[in-house]
């Protein structure tokens, strides 16, 4: 019988394949010790020492492999694992357990659970997450004690992996050629699993709910729709055919669209716009280049800060920004400074739980209070500008004073780099227009910047007072509401009056109904997700400037 589970979309894409369930992590941490006889404590301790050496080696290998295949930031978690393996708190507890007569497996499991429990009970969400790391190393030690081989997650043929939750080490070890898709009962859109799945290009659905995946036998046919957050079990022939067609259709579309790679982004009557792509890190570059985007219109640098222990250093950021700039040169790259807070919490930044995170300490508000962090970003961006075309953009601007302070800081960083004799290049400076106040005062802000980029998601949310993540009211969320369009129109006009340009980098840019209206409002640039670039270009080339302007003026008056 066909059954559909709804979860949280974590990584887009369709997958059709067989289920393979990952051994539940809770079981993995609970060794089957019944019937096992403990040797004398001395030999147990020796066994433990050997297991420790083995675990250290395999973590070091994993660190190396993750650094090579995924990235430096993702590999850092295994550096912490190495330290935890030699932690006296752990070793003392294991020793005490062994001396009390436990087999080493049980001593490790008990010690690991006790320490994980302590971490899980702390009030800092970052530290709570470290409980998972302690469970990961104790699972690894137990596997080594039992003489189990390092398990490669998976089955014989390509499959869709089901799990309660994935440990970082398990996600990193997935073979992306065999894992068609990923579905987990736990986790959120910013969990380690979700972020890694996106960067590895594996369609994923998370947060399906505790227990929902229990009892799905290996080999059951599944359809996973990562964009919609759906997992369909045992689909009917009809459903299966529909998705197979969809999958085939996407292939055909992809082929047809790729012919447009080098075609200009313009309407049939020659109205040209700059069509760029949004990225979250180096992992998205290949898709940007493949889509023939004219640049990066939004580099969400907060992703460089996620899933790690501490902020990336200036050097680390410089290396990344430089690589992006070099690979895209001469095309421009817009680096948006850290936009933490709101729906993107980063535990170690010390942003406490807020009553109203979207109205709280986020974006430029945070950065101007944590100036060192912002300086590291600005210095890295200026240095990268020596190797390509870099623009810097500040998020969540509400007041003129914020723009001035941020710019002053940029000038200060320029001076410092010059004094230090470090090469740097010129950068254009822009702001995100996502707070209605900034849109309404765009004429005051325009003289202070080189460009505006409208963040349509937040601008819509703030203008209409609708949380688009809240199912009860999300039907009211409408980026084409006349109020939002009037603000966009005002921003574009203000920019043009001052000889500046205005773009848009929200999801509205890739919405087929919105495109003619946005073009008609006079936006100079659109930045969309890399997979949408060619589709937007294809649509744009079928429109005319006159038709776009007519639609825009209709909507400004009447709405949808």
């Amino acid at each position, binding site marked *: 019988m066909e059954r559909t589970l709804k979860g949280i979309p974590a990584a887009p894409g369709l997958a059709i394949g067989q289920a393979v369930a990952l051994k539940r992590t809770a079981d993995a941490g609970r060794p089957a010790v019944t019937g096992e006889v403990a040797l004398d404590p001395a030999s147990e301790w020796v066994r433990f020492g050997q297991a420790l050496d083995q675990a250290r080696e395999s973590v070091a290998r994993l660190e190396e492999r993750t650094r090579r295949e995924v990235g430096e930031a993702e590999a850092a978690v295994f550096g*912490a694992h190495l*330290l*935890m393996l030699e*932690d*006296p*708190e*752990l070793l003392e507890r294991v020793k005490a357990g062994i001396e009390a007569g436990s087999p080493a497996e049980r001593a490790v499991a008990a010690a690991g659970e006790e*320490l994980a429990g*302590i*971490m899980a009970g*702390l*009030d*800092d969400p*970052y*530290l709570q997450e*470290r409980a998972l790391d*302690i469970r990961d190393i104790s699972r690894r030690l137990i596997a080594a004690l039992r003489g189990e081989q390092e398990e490669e997650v998976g089955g014989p043929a390509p499959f869709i992996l089901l799990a309660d939750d994935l440990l970082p080490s398990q996600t990193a070890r997935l073979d992306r050629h065999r894992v068609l898709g990923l579905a987990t009962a736990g986790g959120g859109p910013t969990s380690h699993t979700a972020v890694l799945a996106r960067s590895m290009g594996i369609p994923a659905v998370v947060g399906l709910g505790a227990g929902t995946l229990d009892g799905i036998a290996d080999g059951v046919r599944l359809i996973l729709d990562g964009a919609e957050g759906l997992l369909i079990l045992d689909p009917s022939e009809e459903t299966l055919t529909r998705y197979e067609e969809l999958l085939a259709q996407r292939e055909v579309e992809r082929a047809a669209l790729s012919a447009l790679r080098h075609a200009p982004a313009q309407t049939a009557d020659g109205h040209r716009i700059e069509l760029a792509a949004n990225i979250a890190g180096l992992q998205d570059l290949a898709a940007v280049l493949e889509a023939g985007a004219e640049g990066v219109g939004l580099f969400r640098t907060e992703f460089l800060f996620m899933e790690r*222990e*501490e*902020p990336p250093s200036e050097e680390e950021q410089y290396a990344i920004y430089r690589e992006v700039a070099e690979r895209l040169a001469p095309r421009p790259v817009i680096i948006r400074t850290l936009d933490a807070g709101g729906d993107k919490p980063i535990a*170690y*930044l*010390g942003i406490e739980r807020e009553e109203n995170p979207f109205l709280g300490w986020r974006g430029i508000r945070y950065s101007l209070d*944590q100036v*060192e*962090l912002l300086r590291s970003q600005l210095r890295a961006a200026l240095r990268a500008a020596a190797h390509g075309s870099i623009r810097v953009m500040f998020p969540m601007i509400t007041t003129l004073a914020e723009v001035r302070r941020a710019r002053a800081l940029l000038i200060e960083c320029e001076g410092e780099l010059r004094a230090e004799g470090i090469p740097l290049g010129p950068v254009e400076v822009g702001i995100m227009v996502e707070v209605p106040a900034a849109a309404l005062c765009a004429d005051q802000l325009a003289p202070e910047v080189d460009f505006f980029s409208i963040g349509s998601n937040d601008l819509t949310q703030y203008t209409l007072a609708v949380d688009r993540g809240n199912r009860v009211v999300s039907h009211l969320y409408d980026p084409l509401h006349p109020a939002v369009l009037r603000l966009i129109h005002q921003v574009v006009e203000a920019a043009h009056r001052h000889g500046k340009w205005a773009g848009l980098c929200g999801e509205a840019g890739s919405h087929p109904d919105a495109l003619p209206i946005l073009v008609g409002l006079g936006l100079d640039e659109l930045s969309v997700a890399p997979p949408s670039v060619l589709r937007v270009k294809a649509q744009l080339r079928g429109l005319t400037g006159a038709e776009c302007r007519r639609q825009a003026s209709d909507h400004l008056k009447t709405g949808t």
Partner: protein
Amino acid sequence: MTVRATTGLHARPATQVVQEAKRFQSTIRLKHGEKEAAAGSIVGLMSLGLKQGAAVTITADGPDEAEAAQALATLIAGLE
């Protein structure tokens, strides 16, 4: 003394403390409120849950205790 590191004592600063503590023979402990941890344990240090502005007491016991306490205090004060 007071923790100044903006993120509190998370993994990287905790690592530095562990490495510094290992240079000494003395037993070094950090105390924060009711909680206490060995300076040589990353898990122990993190489980103190130290945030920016938290007050900690360092104790050292052993042949190089004065030097050890001083070194750790200097290190923690300098963490960013």
